[in-house]
């Protein structure tokens, strides 16, 4: 039944998730190795034993990169989860609670969008005294606007749809009709929106950590690693910046592609515009 493209998307989606899960797990296991210093092996260029080389304190960069990525992914999962739930609440509220609520929420969205994202993250991090809580709250509280708009639009459209209207006329309660006829349409939108939020969350977490507002310099976070690497660029330790960065890009890219693959699976009509349009 499934066509080739759908099968490809499904395989890709599963493979991407598996890879990311492995990175996350490996990072947790590597945590000890990431912090281990050994001055007998400092400043080694990438070799067979140390794939990503070692830094000036003799720490294995491969372990550090994995630990950092794992940390970023875990923070990304939590914050994007919170942000997506906020988006769901606000999006539904904007659509069903009347004009006033809609206006207030859209005003709030415009305000948040008006402050450059990183600046807002700096402000929130500052408000919470910097550190882990600052970066987690910052990322969680600033990513909801776009998904809120999507969900608001979807709910408004569903509210005017015939099947919803008819079910209401047939005497179904508001909640019953919403659960039966709205939820099945919202779940895919929400899931795709959630997954597509991860890459942004990860990028922003690493950026804010890179600037020194996020995780403390003792943590093996990807932003910390890249921020440290900046000092050694001039002395020629290029591997400190190159490999962790590539891994970060791959992670972000995989989340983005996985989200899009899932969208292709859940909203096949939109994906086949070429065939029908």
């Amino acid at each position, binding site marked *: 039944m499934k066509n080739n493209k759908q099968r490809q998307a499904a395989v890709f989606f599963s493979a991407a998730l598996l890879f990311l899960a492995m990175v996350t797990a490996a990072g947790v296991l590597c945590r000890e190795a990431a912090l281990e210093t050994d001055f007998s092996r400092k400043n080694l260029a990438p070799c067979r034993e140390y794939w990503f080389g070692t830094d000036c304190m003799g720490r294995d960069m491969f372990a550090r990169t994995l630990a950092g990525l794992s940390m970023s992914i875990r923070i990304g999962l939590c914050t994007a989860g919170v942000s997506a739930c906020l988006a769901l609440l606000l999006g539904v509220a904007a659509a069903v609670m009347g004009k006033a609520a809609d206006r207030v929420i859209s*005003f*709030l969205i*415009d*305000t948040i*969008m*008006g*402050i*450059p*994202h*990183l*600046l807002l993250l*700096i*402000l*929130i*991090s*500052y*408000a*919470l*005294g*910097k550190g882990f809580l600052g970066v987690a709250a910052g990322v969680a509280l600033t990513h909801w606007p776009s998904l809120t708009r999507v969900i608001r639009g979807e709910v408004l459209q569903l509210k005017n749809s015939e099947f919803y209207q008819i079910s209401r006329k047939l005497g179904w309660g508001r909640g019953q009709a919403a659960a039966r006829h709205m939820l099945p349409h919202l779940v895919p939108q929400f899931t795709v929106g959630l997954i597509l939020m991860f*890459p942004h969350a990860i*990028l922003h977490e*690493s*950026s804010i950590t*890179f*600037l*020194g*507002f996020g995780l403390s310099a003792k943590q093996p976070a990807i932003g910390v690693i*890249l921020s440290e*690497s*900046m000092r050694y*660029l*001039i002395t*020629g330790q*290029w591997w400190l*910046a*190159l490999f962790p*960065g590539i891994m*970060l*890009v791959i992670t*972000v*890219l995989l989340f*983005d*592609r996985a989200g899009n693959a899932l969208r292709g699976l859940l909203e096949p009509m939109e994906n086949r515009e070429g065939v029908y*349009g």
Partner: protein
Amino acid sequence: MTLAAVNRLIIYAAKKAVRMAALLVMVSLITFGLISASPIDPLQANAGQAAGSMSQEQLDRLAEYWGVDEPPVKRYINWAGDVLKGDMGTSLLYRRPVTEVISQKLFNSLFLLVISWLVSGVLGVFLGILAALYRGRLADRLIRGYALLTASTPAFWLALLLLLVFSVWLKLFPIGLSVPIGMEAAQVTAADRLRHAFLPALTLSITGISGTALHTREKMIDCLESDYVLFARARGESRWEIVRRHGLRNVLLPAITLQFASISEIIGGSVVVEQVFSYPGLGQAAVTAGTGSDVPLLMGITMITALVVFGGNFAADILYGIIDPRMRRGGEAVEEQ
């Protein structure tokens, strides 16, 4: 444009301006709230850093200015009143009026932002059209791949890579600062300025292209699949004629709007990029203000960038109103009623 249409445009602009002012007030409230909630005491943090060089009199004046013992609402009203008079306070780190610091940093940043904004906009539209014309072929795949890759690349890492390749390995560009070290401002030539801004501008341009390019591609594909393009092809117009006569008109307006709306992203990118290249612009000042607890400067920078972002959105709205013929026709329809 008829008089009624002009009138309508003015009313439209006024409405947008009022909304913009309201949004700015909201931004100031949120910023002030966040900064007030901070457990970090700016006076303590700065007196700790510069204890020797700050007199008691200065400290008292700062304490009085920020109303350390006053409730936040009163402090906000004091601050807002001063801002309306054009006084944003004195930067704790730079020891100069915030307005002065910001205008100098903003000038440095604008140079960078405007260049990369223009380059990414023009290249974005160009690549988007190219990808649409060669849809599914190699050029399209390369452009889409590029957009995808740059959208997933953090600006600060790209900046690090460019720094590594061009400054450290090839030694083509200086490693930091907007002017050569130890040179007086008057001696700095335009060529120096350009040389030091080149890599930061390149970084911002590379990352800025992807959104505009993908958006333009979609619009152009819609346009190329339309009936009027089919008819134009039947009339024997060449590919290039079709793009120039039918495509550009449909594609440019949304691209310009998107480009105005992306100002916020470019400013956000400039924060990290300026940090990597130690380019003394507004973004670097924001980071310095945040780490050094320079509250007046942080407030000032947030307000100014929000003003620039809302200004960009406002410009996009007005431009849409002026250029889109539907808007004009809408005006005439009102006139007829």
